[in-house]
């Protein structure tokens, strides 16, 4: 079947099986930033944004995104680069397999909350697993990044 959607601002039409999931379709079409860690929506590595909301692309049927906006990290490169600065400065990046998912979730968090509490941040990040960092440095990095974003918004 044909599915037409907006991928990173460009209209695309994929020919997919009805039971094909978005992560598979995107990887098949060369969007290799989508990393599949569990294939059962439990780890967050394959996160994309669907109409600006984080979604685990391993568990969304490609057919479901007909007409929708799908954003991958390719579309937020400057932002991902900046978030990576904060992660690197805290030593919060190790194997890196989870990082794309975090970049997209942090992007969405910034847009959904103006001034999130620690608990709101943790609730937002809870679906993205990381086995390397121990989370502490990541959390500090995210807080510092959010503070920086807030400064710019105020200006």
């Amino acid at each position, binding site marked *: 079947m044909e599915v037409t959607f907006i991928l990173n601002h460009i209209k695309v039409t994929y020919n997919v099986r009805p039971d094909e999931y978005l992560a598979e379709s995107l990887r098949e079409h060369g969007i290799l930033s989508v990393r599949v860690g569990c294939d059962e929506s439990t780890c967050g590595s394959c996160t994309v944004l669907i109409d600006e909301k984080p979604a685990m692309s391993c568990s969304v049927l490609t057919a479901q995104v007909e007409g929708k906006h799908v954003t991958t990290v390719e579309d937020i490169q400057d932002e991902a680069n900046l978030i990576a600065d904060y*992660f690197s400065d805290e030593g919060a990046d190790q194997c*890196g397999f989870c*990082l*794309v998912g975090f970049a997209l979730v942090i992007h969405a968090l910034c847009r959904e909350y103006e001034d999130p509490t620690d608990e709101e941040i943790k609730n937002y990040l*809870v679906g*993205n697993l990381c086995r*390397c960092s121990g989370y*502490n440095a990541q959390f500090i990095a995210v807080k510092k990044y959010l503070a920086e974003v807030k400064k710019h918004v105020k200006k």
Partner: protein
Amino acid sequence: MSKSNLKVVNNKTRSVDGHAEMMGRPLYTDDYAPHGSLVCRMLRSPHAFAHIKNIDTSKAEALNGVKCVLTYKNVPHVAMSRAGQAAPSPSPIDKFILDEYVRYVGDEVACVAAINERIAEDALKLIEVEYEVFEPVLDYKKAFQNKTVIHPEEGISQAFEMGFRPKDNVAASYEMQVGDVESALKKCEVVIEHTAESQAQAHAMMEPHCSNARLDDHNRLVIYTCTQTPFHMRRILAKTLGMPLNGVRIVKPRVGGGFGGKQAFHCEFFVALVTLRTGLPSKMVYSREEVFGASYTRHPMCITMKIGADKDGTIRAIDCRALSDTGAYGEHALTVFMIVGSKVLPLYNKVDAVRFGGRVVYTNHVPAGAYRGYGAIQGNYVLESAIDILAEKLHMSPIELRLKNSMKEKETSPIFEIMGEGTKGTPMIMESCKLPYCITRGAELIDWDKKYPRIQVGPHTIRSVGMAIAMQGSGIPYMDMGSSSIKLNDDGSYMVTSGATDIGQGSDTVITQIVAEELMTSVDRVTIYSSDTDLTPFDVGAYASSTTYVSGNAALRAAQKMKARLIREAAAILEVKEDDIDFDGKVFVAGDKSIKLADLASRITYSKDMHQVAVTESFFGRVSPPPFMAGYVEVEVDTETGEYQLVNYVSVVDCGTTINPMLARGQVEGGIVQGYGMASCESVIYNKTGKLLTNNFSTYHIPTHKEINKLTTEFADSYDPTGPFGAKSVGEIGIDTPPAALCNAIYNAVGVRINDLPITPEKILTAMKEKEEKKEQ
């Protein structure tokens, strides 16, 4: 040497790869699979132990799109060990690529390669297998000399005597004794005995195991794979498949975490055989269920510690007996077992006598293998709980008892000489050991004196603290070798090729820093490429906490050699003596003569007497200086439900110089949380027929952002003269203390000691109720 004038090492340096990873570049193994690769899927055993009486693959082979089906009938029948270790193998040689026996639910039966995943999955359903099902061994305490023999087959062996007795279900055994433990214990005024068990923790790295293969322009087999040991893999794969070593190339791209789980073989044999048979590129990616249920786990163990001491708190004797479950195959059976003794018992080095021994048995469970901590975490859990029990009996503070008896600088333990990894060990003096500082500083940071043992903070809420100390090693002496090559580019920058295997821990960054420091340049002038058996020099790989120490020393030597070579080059050009040259990383100066490095590089490449400057150096350890740490945990326990929260985990670590302080912190904190997961929530449950039920992230809970509130990590000021710029290892030490520290903290809170991991609210509440009932009687 000192740390004071370091400019790159021990300074804040960003990782060399983090940005590319976050920006989503194609970097990992599966990103390199050629488009249109055949997809390999595995038919796995539904039985815990069975013999394949008959296997019919004809219907699967006839399915349109299926290119190849592998079974035990058509693959080489050569025994090997998948463990990914040095030669001769210190693990039993007890595995065939595919076998007519299947020994756990999930064991490999047949591999299908098809033009897409869907067809491969459909083909698996068409394979007809007739099994003769046997009674499995599912309790490792009943495995020894069980009537069910898990490895009855011919052709399996041990490379040297390690107690391998397959007819008794014993993969390995080990015994050692210093002094006379029995008589030393008899003389002690206080003796305690403590037994506890730990579970088959899952590695749960984020990137599932995967490999892909193709033939190159020389018709050689090229495998991209997420491995910790590319060079061991090349050796074992070539030998098992009967190929020349140089007919195989293993490329390790970015790896999405390993923790020991990627030291061994997973998909590599299958993609290799499929590509060799079909001539087509192929790939295999494990499902998360396969990662949990068909790769490796930590060795579950039951350990008993008997400790004898005088009333003044002098520990006189330790007797440690252990039973380890290696599951269906013996990968790392002996070596993990020996670490239970060799990297735990020397913590208390002033004893008159110490004994260690026991067996590693086969069962019909998912095989166990290498896992960060590697026996030390299992041993530490029981020893460090036992030390708290002893302290209570002696009416001493647990801190005082540890300070009195634990390892100090310039001291040693006879265990170092007796026990190595699989073989004899190496004597060594602790040239650096800041353990007493780690203990006292940790107590300050957690505010022990105010909080120990507990504070009531609500009607049914208690805050308590607990602690443990630990040690690890830095590579395997006289066994682990690493190498680096450095070549000068024509603009004066450097290209480093290193065998060191970056699996996410940051070794590429650390080696870049070491080279930049020695060559007095910045990290952006040094480019590193690591772990490709064609292009980089040999390195054993990322295991045994060896990379910073072994590979780092190799990189340092290579940089020293490059510096000497450059000075020689400059001396020739300037027509002065080498001794007269001052080099600051940018310019060579001798009196009034000088040449810039960039000009030298350009001149020797393009202008005069042209040649390439390149050096290679290697290193192997003569000792394995242990990192040490003290871990302190504060928890808040709800006495009505048994639930508890992690309030803070304080780590004070002596890993020598931290080459990269941020990455070192990441190693410690990542280890703490992985160890805390094992201690608190990572339950492993099998059903009655031996199927692993906890085989996804819904049923196997690993810590998330929500459980981790505060981690406090500090490093002791320490310098090991044998390490690169004073560094020791830091990869494993972080994981060791959480089980014992948490167990001690829960005891300090509610007076019950949970002696099997993980420490769940259910177990706490049940133990509290039992204690209450006993009191009433």
